């Protein structure tokens, strides 16, 4: 499959939602004008775009800061999630002890821990990364563990029969087998990590989109808040695409996008 056909195919699947978004924006613009809604309650897309281009410099600065925080948090959180998944999978006793607790821990709203983390670790990078790690880690760990556990029995038996050692089975079979599942977890974690970063910035930061939003909220600059929201959406999308791109490079043999064997209809 060449790069160009990939691009064409991508374009073909991308234009319907793109048109839908355009249509929605047009509707929004028309409604705001028709009903004469005040700009501080709901600005029209045109007004938001104008304001965004006017404060582009400051928005860009905050965006970069958030992007950096998100990427660091995402990488750390996913790495921790993957590491925990590997450990629990390779040490079944540990898994039976900790897995139920892990599930239970999801009832604690991670976001609610953020203020506490700020108290303990101050307002630097560390508490923010911890917040993002806490939200990223779970989907990655669970999807990886699921992937490991769902390893094909016949392949597993085959590896055992030919005398593969535990670590060989893990490296040559279970890990590659779990990759599609792992990547669906990473995709979720990618979106979560942007959210985590913004919330961490709400609670305590001197720059970043989250900080910018808090600032504009006190000034009732609805248009700027909308611009910030648009940027958050764009960041999420960007990370999502990044993960998908890496998946394309890493997952082989027609098993992309959650499909097991056999897929790839042509």
């Amino acid at each position, binding site marked *: 499959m060449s790069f160009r056909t990939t691009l064409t195919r991508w374009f073909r699947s991308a234009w319907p939602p793109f048109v839908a978004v355009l249509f929605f924006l047009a509707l929004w613009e028309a409604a705001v004008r028709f009903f004469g809604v005040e700009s501080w309650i709901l600005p029209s897309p045109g007004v938001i775009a104008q304001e965004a281009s006017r404060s582009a410099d400051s928005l860009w600065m905050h965006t970069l800061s958030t992007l950096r925080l998100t990427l660091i948090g995402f990488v750390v959180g996913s790495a921790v999630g993957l590491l925990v998944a590997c450990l629990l999978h390779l040490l079944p006793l540990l898994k039976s002890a900790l897995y139920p607790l892990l599930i239970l821990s999801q009832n604690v709203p991670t976001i609610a821990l953020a203020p506490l983390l700020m108290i303990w670790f101050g307002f630097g990078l560390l508490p923010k990364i911890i917040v993002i790690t806490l939200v990223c880690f779970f989907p990655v760990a669970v999807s990886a563990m699921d992937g490991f556990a769902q390893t094909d029995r016949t*392949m597993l038996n085959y590896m*055992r029969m030919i005398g593969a050692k535990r670590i060989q089975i893990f490296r040559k079979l279970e890990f590659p087998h779990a990759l599609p599942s792992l990547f669906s977890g990473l995709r979720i974690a990618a979106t979560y990590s942007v959210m985590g970063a913004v919330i961490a910035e709400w609670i305590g930061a001197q720059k970043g989109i989250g900080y910018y939003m808090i600032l504009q909220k006190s000034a009732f600059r609805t248009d700027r808040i909308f611009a910030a929201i648009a940027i958050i959406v764009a960041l999420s999308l960007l990370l999502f695409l990044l993960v998908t791109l890496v998946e394309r490079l890493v997952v082989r043999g027609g098993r992309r996008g959650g499909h097991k064997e056999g897929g790839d209809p042509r």
Partner: protein
Amino acid sequence: MNERNSEDLRIQKTAARADGPVQTSQRKNAETAAGTASAASPAPIKLELSGVQKSFGSRRRPLPVIGGVSLQVREGEFVSLIGPSGSGKSTLFHLIGGLLQPDSGEIRLDGRVINGERGHIGYMPQQPALFPWRTIEENVVLDREVNGIPRRDTLDEARRWMERAGLSGFERAYPHTLSGGMQQRAAFVRALLSPHELMCLDEPFSALDAFTRSEMQTWLLDIWEETRRSVLFVTHHIEEALLLSDTVYVLSGRPSSVLRRIEVPFPRPRREEIAETPEFLALRRELTGLMKEEQRKSRAENGGRAARG
């Protein structure tokens, strides 16, 4: 040890290629002689099962699957197992491969008890079980890789065998782009490249249509007569067993035991045409009768079981 075996494979192969007809006819004579005076100097025993038993299920309601199986595979011998579905043939392979422990009895390899020990055999499972993220050539060398032989030392030989298996051009393809028959051939080459002398093949041609199947049988016959590995081969197909094997064991239904051991007298190298000889037909008739009887019994048994609860 590993190295030695792979060397053997190569030497035997080149020998067979180098002096085609002369050597073959010599071998044929030797075989016929061995066939008539069978006990002259039999090859040493490679694999021996004695009184192997295995039950599944709970202690309260055990399901005896293998009820005492004894059999032998000599070095360089092709041995087939036939038996009704569910008689525990795959389970027997799992026992030999050390995936399961027998409840009683012994499994010996080269005279040594290997109950529950893994990593002594080359194996082809009932489903090809190729790894979808590996290309065909990466799949084919997996057994060697697991046994610590680096990939680059194997790839050349692997490619040669893939060519013999009609897989050339597909070395870099992924399994999902291959037909079922090609996948089975790849799984076979993977077992063939195993550094272990004994190969256990579990119904390698079960998923094929009749025509492809007979093509594959001839192909396997050729390759085996060249390499002369010790083979234990499971099949449902009586003709296939007779065509390929030196010895056929017929298993009963569950709990299985050996009903009959048949030495197949045809000289090697064999041709498909032996299937038309009266001797072959007589053997086939005998085995078919035996199998029909067994199938009927095991169905009645299972029916009774189902009716009871």
